[in-house]
């Protein structure tokens, strides 16, 4: 790793020893899980590069942007509208973390029975290992599940730039009005931070940028319907993960290039696995970098993942924002319209989600669904039971898993997944 990164990391206040340890683990995991795959699309090389520079070049870019007067906004949830952030001359980065870190310190602040995602976000802060978090000028929390809501109260003393957005829990007219007023309040906070007023043009341009990014992912998803699947679930998940970190325009370009290659694969009926490989839809909690545990187990068990019904996946990228509004207010309404459809399990009731799972099973020709629940995640674990029941009534096999980031249960999970795959054959 080059020397200027070391200085850059020190300047950001990272703990270099712990940070090195993290990069080591990340590098090894990436090599063993990603680079070991066979038959990968050549265009995935872009993502190999992104991952190798995830704490290097990308951070340098963000710091350069900062030096040029742009602000960096960190977010933990897909409800934070990137369109507005871009319109206010700022850059949005996802902070959701997918690895255990500094757990002893974390458990001084959070109860043990907190989901791995929340613990991880604290671990990255307390362990001083996340350059994204440390570069951010504003960290946006949101009132979603109880765990996150209360965790932000404990996070506040640790960071000096936390902004908390309130979110509705019911899909009613009142709920929508709340979302709009919170988005307006957020836009004001952004404008105050950046000193840049959002205009119709800048907002429309932000919308177009993010829509383009979503469209590229939609194109990628649609190609996964082919049998044989042209890309592994691991690689497709990676694209969905990098969605949150990368420069949007460059990301869009890279994903479209992958799609060009995949189209050729589909046309020539070649893929990453033989025709007839059992196809699985993963549904449930978000899988943040570097949480590749489940797809690794599934794809080592002779199945292929063809879709993610998750916030790092289709729940996060579904639907575009209508670009046609001619005033800021009309465009904001369009943004509200789009985000209000996100079917997160914090909503009650949340019937859209079940319909989407069934739609995705059809669209991607999945043979079965694995419901992925993080231990202690009440919203998704609760929904898992009716989801499983409804799918079984339709004759769609479903395996309900509950796990965390540790590898302690890898053997057990493997047995469950292999048995499920045997069931689908």
């Amino acid at each position, binding site marked *: 790793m080059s020397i200027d990164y070391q200085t850059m990391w020190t300047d950001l206040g990272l703990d270099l020893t712990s940070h090195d340890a993290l990069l080591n683990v990340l590098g090894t995991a990436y090599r063993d899980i990603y680079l070991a795959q066979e038959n990968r699309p050549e265009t995935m090389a872009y993502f190999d590069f992104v991952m190798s520079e995830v704490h290097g070049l990308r951070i340098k870019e963000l710091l350069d942007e900062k030096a040029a007067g742009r602000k960096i906004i960190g977010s933990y949830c897909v409800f934070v509208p990137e369109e507005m952030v871009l319109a206010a001359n700022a850059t949005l980065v996802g902070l959701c973390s997918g690895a255990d870190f500094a757990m002893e310190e974390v458990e001084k602040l959070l109860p043990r029975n907190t989901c791995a995602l929340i613990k991880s976000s604290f671990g990255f802060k307390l362990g001083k290992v996340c350059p994204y978090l440390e570069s951010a000028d504003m960290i946006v929390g949101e009132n979603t599940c109880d765990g996150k809501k209360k965790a932000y109260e404990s996070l506040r003393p640790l960071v000096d730039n936390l902004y908390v957005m309130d979110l509705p829990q019911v899909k009613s007219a009142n709920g929508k009005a709340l979302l709009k007023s919170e988005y307006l309040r957020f836009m004001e906070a952004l404008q105050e931070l950046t000193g840049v007023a959002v205009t119709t043009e800048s907002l429309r341009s932000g919308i177009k940028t993010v829509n383009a990014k979503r469209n590229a992912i939609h194109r990628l998803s649609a190609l996964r319907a082919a049998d044989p699947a042209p890309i592994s679930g691991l690689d497709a998940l990676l694209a969905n993960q990098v969605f949150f970190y990368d420069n949007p325009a460059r990301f869009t370009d890279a994903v479209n290039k992958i799609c060009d290659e995949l189209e050729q694969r589909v046309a020539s009926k070649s893929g990453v696995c033989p025709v007839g490989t059992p196809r699985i839809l993963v549904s449930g909690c978000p899988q943040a970098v570097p949480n590749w545990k489940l797809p690794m187990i599934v794809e080592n068990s002779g199945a292929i993942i063809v879709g993610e019904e998750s916030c790092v996946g289709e729940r996060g990228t579904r639907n575009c924002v209508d670009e046609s509004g001619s005033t800021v207010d009309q465009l904001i309404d369009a943004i509200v319209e789009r985000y209000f459809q996100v079917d997160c399990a914090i909503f009650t009731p949340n019937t859209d989600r079940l319909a989407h799972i069934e739609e995705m099973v059809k669209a991607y020709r999945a043979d079965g669904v694995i419901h992925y629940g993080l231990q202690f995640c009440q919203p998704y674990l609760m929904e898992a039971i009716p989801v499983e029941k409804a799918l079984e009534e339709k004759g769609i096999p479903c395996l309900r898993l509950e796990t965390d980031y540790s590898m*302690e249960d890898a053997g057990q999970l493997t*047995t469950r997944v292999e048995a499920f795959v045997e069931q689908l054959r």
Partner: protein
Amino acid sequence: MTHYGGIDIGSRTIELVVVDEAGQVCASLQCDTGYDPLAATRSLIDAAPFDRIMATGYGRTLFEISFESRTVTEIKAHARGARALFGDAATIIDIGGQDSKAIALLENGRVKKFEMNDRCAAGTGKFLEIMARTLGFTIDDFGREALQAQNALTISSMCTVFAESEVTSLIAKGEDPRNIALGLHHSVIRRAAAMINRVSSAGDVVFTGGVARNPCMTELLAKQLGRRVLVPDEPQRIGALGAALLLMEEH
């Protein structure tokens, strides 16, 4: 004549079953897993000739790598093995050394749904083994002794460590070890029954795995479920038998 082997590498024992082309068992061997499962496996394999082999059990991957064999999960293997002995088996409970599984089958014998215990030893053979030792019974006597109990004491903890200290304090209070033993059996059975009920609600249940040899377990399970519980002669070898039969059917 081709012979097909099925080997089940469990946490406590390793079972090897060899069948012929007609699915008739021609050899059935067992040994302790011990500290060197590969060496133990090798000694079994040398003792019974076969042409092809399929591995199952928690050590299946280890075996696959060392002996280049095929593998199948315990779930599918037990399903196949149980069907061989009970032609219309639709529900299976397998309680082995370190995990337990409830399996529901479709009419054609394929797995419809299954459940497995959590990551700890609660509700498994290991739990019973440790408790038997704490009470001073051998594992073979444990169930018989429990059946002699006058009444069952309540053991509230399913965690092996906590249950052990509960048992120790009951012994200190002068409680009859048989009553404690029955209480322990009850607590494992409640879990197993709940797991079975989650995958299937009616009909006979085939009980496989080493724990099925415990007469108290089978009796209590039938009572708790209000369903008939069928136990094969050698319940601990059903996984190996299933693996051998699955392999045979592939050829």
